[in-house]
């Protein structure tokens, strides 16, 4: 498959609250990704990551796709789509498979059976399962392992992190893309995709939290021991900060957005505490002066609340007490001045700005904080493609060899 050029181009599409973003990459025969280009168009009819105007959103997506095609000289036929929204729910699930009183050797079939079982799990009405992310397998003696095949046990348990969403909302997003004659190859939870763009295998193993501060929502994901331990979505984002500012200063929303971008901070330093910033006259607006202390107070109250809600949610998780990983901030909202300092104070853990993992090619992804989700979609797409193709020639040879060696060990 890697030799097939038409299928080796991966396209990530994110219909976000403030922008529609598209990233295009090429997957070469070695399984490495080369970033070909990125494109974006403003989205005005998506709120909290949910489409409020189908036609206008479709036009915006179409514009972004055309732009991407022009920049990368690639004809886009299928995309990997990021899914998000305040309706997304995640929860843990543990399933058990009885292997008989005498025990039995665990085979691939058992793992498939467990996976089927988890997919059949009952969900609240109207919800569908988005992801069933395996965490670990547990044997009857309590041993946890990522690959139990070949081991003997009387019972096999599996822990899954499940993500579900309201079917109709997801249908709207998917339908919006399909109407443009684009095939949705697969979709991924936005925070899951973001983590793929930012975290190295070591960081996933050691433990990391990625908080994606978007315009409409804030989503987060926790990796621990190499698997997804927890994820969540909060329907509050950068737009709320802007709206708070608009209400407090009594200015229209676009002007508040401008004020936030130019002077917004959540760190009341001495040098700015007594300053006032001016909003220039323009159009129907008059010149206006706003004290920095007010801006900081308003933005800090909102941003602190967002972090506190996330912290409360994380504190409810059993693993959090012993969690020693780092917290990474990403998304457009993470560029707000002083946000890391505030997050460090609230989480009482080291917090740093996330940097996307590098791609091959001339197009750099350095400084693209707001692009992490689409870049992550490309990495997610790579995993999907490799699983579909069986992981490439060398992987297939490696698996055959290990099967052969395991037989030698048995006899």
């Amino acid at each position, binding site marked *: 498959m890697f030799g097939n050029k038409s299928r080796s181009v991966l396209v990530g599409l994110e219909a976000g609250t403030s922008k529609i973003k598209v990233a295009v990459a090429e997957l070469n025969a070695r399984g490495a990704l080369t970033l070909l280009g990125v494109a974006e168009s403003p989205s005005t009819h998506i*709120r909290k990551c949910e489409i*409020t105007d189908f036609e206008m959103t479709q036009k915006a997506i179409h514009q972004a796709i055309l732009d991407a095609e022009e920049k990368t000289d690639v004809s886009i036929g299928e995309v990997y789509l990021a899914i998000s929204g305040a309706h997304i729910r995640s929860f843990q699930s543990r399933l058990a498979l009885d292997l008989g009183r005498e025990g039995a050797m665990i085979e691939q079939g058992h793992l498939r059976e467990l996976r089927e079982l988890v997919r059949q799990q009952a969900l609240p009405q109207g919800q569908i399962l988005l992801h069933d992310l395996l965490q670990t397998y547990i044997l009857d003696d309590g041993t946890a392992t990522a690959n139990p095949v070949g081991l003997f046990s009387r019972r096999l348990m599996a822990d899954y992190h499940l993500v579900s969403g309201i079917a109709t909302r997801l249908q709207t997003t998917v339908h919006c893309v399909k109407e443009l004659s684009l095939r949705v190859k697969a979709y991924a939870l936005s925070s899951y995709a973001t983590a793929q763009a930012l975290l190295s295998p070591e960081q996933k193993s050691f433990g990391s939290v990625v908080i994606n501060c978007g315009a409409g929502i804030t989503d987060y994901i926790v990796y621990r021991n190499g698997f997804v331990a927890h994820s969540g979505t909060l329907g509050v984002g950068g737009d709320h900060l802007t*709206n708070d500012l608009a209400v407090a200063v009594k200015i229209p929303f676009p002007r508040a957005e401008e004020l936030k971008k130019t002077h917004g901070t959540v760190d009341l330093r001495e040098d700015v505490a007594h300053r006032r910033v001016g909003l220039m006259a323009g159009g129907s607006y008059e010149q206006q002066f706003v004290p920095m202390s007010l801006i900081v107070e308003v933005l800090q109250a909102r941003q602190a609340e967002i972090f506190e809600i996330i912290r409360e949610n994380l504190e409810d998780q059993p693993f959090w007490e012993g969690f020693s990983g780092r917290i990474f901030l990403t998304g457009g909202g993470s560029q707000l001045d002083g946000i890391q300092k505030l997050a460090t104070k609230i989480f009482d853990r080291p917090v740093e700005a996330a940097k996307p993992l590098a791609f091959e090619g001339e197009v750099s992804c350095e400084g693209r904080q707001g692009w992490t989700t689409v870049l992550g979609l490309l990495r997610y797409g790579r995993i999907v493609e490799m699983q579909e193709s069986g992981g490439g020639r060398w992987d297939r040879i490696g698996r055959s060899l290990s099967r052969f060696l395991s037989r030698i060990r048995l006899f």
Partner: protein
Amino acid sequence: MSVRIVGAGAAGINVVDEWILLSDCPTGSLACDGEASSVDGSLASQKLLLAPDITGGLGCFGSRDLAWRMVGQENQQLEELLKDCSRLLIVTGLAGATGATVAEVLSLKAVEREIPTTVFAFPPFPFETEERQEAAEATRDALPAEASLFLFPPPPLSEEPIPDVAAVRRGLRAFQSALAQWVDVWSGMARGVVLPANPGAEAESSRFTVAGVIEDCHVFSEARARLDLSLPGFLEGSGFRQAAEKADRCLAYIEAGGEDSGWKEELGERLREFLPKRTRLDLLRRTEARPTETRLLLLVGRAASRHPTPVCPERDEERPAPEPARIPLRPCVFPEPEGRLVPASQASQDGTPFAKTAATLHKGQNLDIPAFRRRSRS
């Protein structure tokens, strides 16, 4: 002080849900019905599905007998609800069987425990069957006299042969929102706080709500000191500056311990003048027709009144007043005021990015409301 707001039946639950979306502090809400879908889908903090083993969560299909059986089975649960409750508000539609039965039973139980109880109810639509109209009438009469009853007529329906469904739905939604504003104001008053319906926004507040605040402001006498500060703020925030000044003066007068007769006159004057000149409210016309004392009794019930000697609404001046305990309190019907009702939930969100989306709720708080405002209030 624990205030409980019960949405009884599907119609009541809808109003309570609207209130939760509207209010800054929607605590103490309860959704109670026999239909699993309306209870499960509610935003209330507590939910009570009545007798699922009898109806399988499908409701009672308008059967009053079945509703009584369901409520009887949940007797203990309903009594539990009233524990530590210091003030109770029940919102219900009288046309439905479950809501009306729950309202009747719950208000009787609350009155037995001397819990001040208020019922917000709306009668059946004119097109509903005679049987339903009679049943609603019977429920209204059966509500305990000690409970205050507010009746809200539902919006009039279009007389066109094929009514515009969207318009009917909009009308119902506006009605629910207006009623939710009442609930919000009642809840605030019960907690001793009156807050602007549209904080910070230049939105027009429903005259319905303003009238409600004016009517109720003196009722909770224990909260008077705080009302002093917050009522004028509410009125000013709602665009009724003159009324705010008037209310300010009136409250100062009450605070100073003025004579009863002077207080009444001041209140009457305030009620007449608090709205813009072109506005016409039936409520005001009735104010002129009836003595203020009587109207207040009708509105808020004897238990809540600050007047030491209640007066019978239909009292003949020449006859002696009957004993207060036996006075049957008649419900007071509030006609919908003329003009367009602008629910605060819609008005406050217009022009913001959240106008077309569901509110983000977290632990009973609407996170779409500016954080600095919610924090400063709490």
